[in-house]
């Protein structure tokens, strides 16, 4: 019934099946919206956050989706600026995922603040010393860039593209996309970095605090680096997932292989830097404040040293090694495992940098504080996932996301 909207030459499932999927995801979305409205109307007392856990699940989700959405800027950079032309076959999807991630991040921020009606004060009364100000500016600007990158894709819908104006607009936008890609990469560098700086400038929190260069703590670079390394993994992961669900091959293996290889290199170098950073922090920075590394991983029911090993070894070194070996990349199970581990790794890193920071005591007479999110927090965190699924479903159905799809499935 909607065949007129479906791109030429590709097959899509029946509209009924599609609608059912939308309804299921929509149900989850509505649940999230209900929780969101509860929070906006009744306030943040709907969460299980408290004065010790002022930053919690949402901020983790925020940092998480921004890291995962990092594929958009990095693939954009590779494709448009560095000129890895093969990547044009996956860039659309990366942009879409990035768009979903960043819009979600902004939505979560709007739910997270105590006075959403005043959240624009961050721009109006900006404190240029605050990492969060930098985050807010770069994030909003980059979101605008992502929107601009996503628009031509929408305009390529079969029906819309029939309108000459939209057709020309899309064409022209593609032409200048290199400028936006460069801008996006530049902005991403700063907001990924400033997100990394967010916990690391907290010099009152020895678990988070990192030294650095000039005004930038080391995590500033580590966050950007990790987003560039792990973001494409998420793109690969979602692509693979989409292929599984639709039962179609969507991107050619050489494209996947190239991206995986670049990711592997990024990840490998990142993890070395991360190990150096951790080492320096554990032996110099933290000890100067009177903390041994193990102090941060003991006397509590959850945060053991396992989390450090999981992040660095299991979800860092292991996937990096897989992605760096041609064998690992060519074996589809290994590749899938690697990108999955990588996604978990970066999410673990962001979790540690937000939640463990809040949990660890600083004053000697305080204890670890554990936190379990309320259902409202969980629902509003799942909301973007449902929203993402819906947007992917619609975009995949009606927009020519994968240029190689027709060829691969003919």
């Amino acid at each position, binding site marked *: 019934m909607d065949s007129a909207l479906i791109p030429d030459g590709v097959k899509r499932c029946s509209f009924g099946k599609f609608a059912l999927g939308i309804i299921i995801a929509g149900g989850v979305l509505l649940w999230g919206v209900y929780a969101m409205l509860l929070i906006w109307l009744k306030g943040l007392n709907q969460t299980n956050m408290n004065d010790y856990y002022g930053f919690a699940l949402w901020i983790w989700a925020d940092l998480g989706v921004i890291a995962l959405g990092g594929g958009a800027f990095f693939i954009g950079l590779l494709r448009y600026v560095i000129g890895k032309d093969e990547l044009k076959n996956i860039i659309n999807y990366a942009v879409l995922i990035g768009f979903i991630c960043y819009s979600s991040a902004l939505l979560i921020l709007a739910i997270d603040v105590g*006075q959403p*009606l*005043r959240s*624009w*004060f961050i721009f109006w009364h900006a404190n240029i010393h605050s990492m969060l100000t930098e985050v807010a500016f770069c994030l909003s600007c980059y979101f605008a860039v992502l929107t601009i990158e996503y628009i031509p894709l929408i305009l390529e819908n079969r029906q819309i593209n029939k*309108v000459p104006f939209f057709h020309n607009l899309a064409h022209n936008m593609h032409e200048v996309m290199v400028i936006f890609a460069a801008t996006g990469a530049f902005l991403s560098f700063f907001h990924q970095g400033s997100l990394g700086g967010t916990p690391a400038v907290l010099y009152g929190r020895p678990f988070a605090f990192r030294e650095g260069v000039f005004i930038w703590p080391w995590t500033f670079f580590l966050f950007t680096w990790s987003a560039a390394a792990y973001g494409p993994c998420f793109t690969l992961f979602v692509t693979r997932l989409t292929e599984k669900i639709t039962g179609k091959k969507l991107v050619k293996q050489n494209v996947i292989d190239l991206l995986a290889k670049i990711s592997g290199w990024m990840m490998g170098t990142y993890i070395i830097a991360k190990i150096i950073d951790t080492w320096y922090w554990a032996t110099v920075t933290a000890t100067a404040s009177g903390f041994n590394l193990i102090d941060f991983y003991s006397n509590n029911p959850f945060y053991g040293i396992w989390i450090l090993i999981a992040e660095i070894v299991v979800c860092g070194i292991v996937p990096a090694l897989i992605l760096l070996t041609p064998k690992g990349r060519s074996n589809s199970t290994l590749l899938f495992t690697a990108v999955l581990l990588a996604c978990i790794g970066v999410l673990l890193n962001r979790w540690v940098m937000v939640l463990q920071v809040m949990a660890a005591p600083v004053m000697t007479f305080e204890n670890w504080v554990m936190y379990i999110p309320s259902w409202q927090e969980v629902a509003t965190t799942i909301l973007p996932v449902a929203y993402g699924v819906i947007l992917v479903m619609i975009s995949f159905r009606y927009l020519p996301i994968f240029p190689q799809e027709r060829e691969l499935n003919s």
Partner: protein
Amino acid sequence: MNIGRRSFLSFVIGGAAGTAITPLPWKLIDDSSIWSQNWPWTPVPPDGEYSQVNSVCTLCPGGCGITLRKVDDRVVKIEGMKGHPINDGGLCLMGLSGLQLLYGPTRVKTPLKRVGKRGEGKWEKISWDEAISEVTKKLADIRSNGESHAVGSIVDSESGTVPNLFKRFLTAYGSPNFMTMPSIQDTYGMTLQLMQGVSAQAGFDAENADFILSFGSGIIDGWGSPVRMFKANSAWKANGKKVVQIEPRLSNTAAKSDKWIPIKPGTEAVLALGLANVIITNSLDSKKISRSTGFESFKKLVQNEYSIDKVSKITGINSATIVSLAKNFARASKPLAICGKGQGSIPGSLNEFMAVHALNALVGNINKEGGVWAVTETDYIKWPKLEMDSVAENGMQKERIDGAGSEYPHANSLLNRLAEVINSGDGSLEVIFVSGANPLYSMPDSKAMKTAFDSIPFVVSFSSYMDETADNADLILPNHVYLERYEDVPTLAGLSKPIVGLTRPVVKPQFDTKHVGDVVMLIAKALGGGMADAFPWESYEACLKETLGVKWDVLVEKGFEFNGDKCILEGDFNFYPEAMKSLSNFTPVSAEGSAISYPLILIPYDTIRLANGYIGDPPFAIKAVEDTVLKGKNSCVEINPKTGKELGLTEGRYASLLTPRGKAKVKVHLYEGIMPGIIALPRGLGHTAYDKYLAGKGCNFNELIGPAEDPVSGLDAAWGIRARLTKV
């Protein structure tokens, strides 16, 4: 007009873009944030003219001076009064949160008559005229039946005009049953009577002492006049004076002392006598005292019966500690021994008080700088002589229901016996007045007290607040709170220089309340005859002015005046009064219950952050209570980790606490500062009345313990009770 898809889209997009460049959305964004800054449900306190008034705090017997900051006719802050001899600017957290009692939700706003069952909380608002005629009718009936002695009253203390109006009222009416809330003042008074032959109170020259030996007194936990003791404690610290605290639990006082000596609870008297033994045997006692009455018998007693080894065994304190403590105490230039556990709300064992007082006498610090003074209040209450009619004469001949003055000749009031007497059918009351007290909460075995009250046909409360007793009354005649009324506030509370202060109406009464003094007089006048004649004043205020005489002007001007004398020691100090003979074969006041069914010993502890008398904690005060004392709806019980391990109890676990008198669900708090085998619960929690900020939080210690009658004084000497703690 045919609107196509394209024109519709253009319209929508164009419209949106057009609106965005108008000021409208930006103005709306700005307005919404301005709205969020001025939410109508966030109050904006009105400004006005600022002023200050001095008055006196009456929330505890401490008698601190307060300064009230006012904005127009609202009081916005209570502060300690600078230059006041007791507190000089400082104030405790109860005093500081007094405005929550004045303006808070727990006030009784008009006279109330019960309509539902007792304690059901169903009330009918009635007028003051109706209320007074209700009481009058009842009293007239009882009196005409010759049952006048079946009317009793419970008030907070013996001194001051309001308690004396009650006393006068009962006397004129014909009832001896004027009862007061118990405290260590009862025991100290008796001790001074027996050992020094004076009718006086103990006044401690704490500020000038240089070695303070405290037998469990909560020096900084609310004992005596709390702020004054805090100040004394700071002065000791600043000047290097020594404090030794003896008690089984590391209380705040113990933690701040120079030495904490844990002792098996209930054996304090034995330690005092053991110390006396060391002092006498080593000839460290003051020679002048050695020739006092009864000294030889006392010496024989301590040397024969209280050898160091025996004392060490009974108290659990090692011999060397006992000897060095005794020597350090005796060698100090101004040693001072004090007793009365915690805040001193339980009178305690008379033997213990006498033994401790004997220690003071041994080192010669009675009526000396830095020592214990026998102080008396100047009795400014000189009312015309009461003409009693025959009913009154008859009634006053009857024995008191609590046995004070008869069964226990030394006692003035034994409220601790009331529940037992009534519940066992040995006596009964027809009417009870309760003013400035909350016996259904704060008397040991408060459940038994409630049962006793249930059998009293007519219970009248004068409480300003909906407390437990008011909640179970038939009629509430609400008094003004202390910030709305004039009243004299005589303060002893262990001061070496007694003071009288004046509370004054800082604000006009907030509700339809009446001064209790006026109400008593109105009832008397309504009863007519001799009753009316006994109260010749037209109002309480007139009565107060006349009573205070020249003092009135001073009090209005200054807020306080010194009001008392130090007694001259008449005759010898008696080391061995008759009452002490029982010590020759010492049997400590034991904790109720069998050791088999109840393997642990439960003791109460007092904290200054919890009020446990007439006043319940206001919201600010309860907010300041630690989460190791109260967590959610549960009191936390302190257990030594060793004991916890034996019982399989870990931090934060729920446990069921059982004593011979009651049970409660509690939360476990492992605390290294408590003797193994002993557990402690805070006093002041477990209210069922007042507001939602206080009611239903924790358990009331008084529901878990019963009174233990001191064999000599008749006063309550219970210091703990046997208990069992099991996992839930």
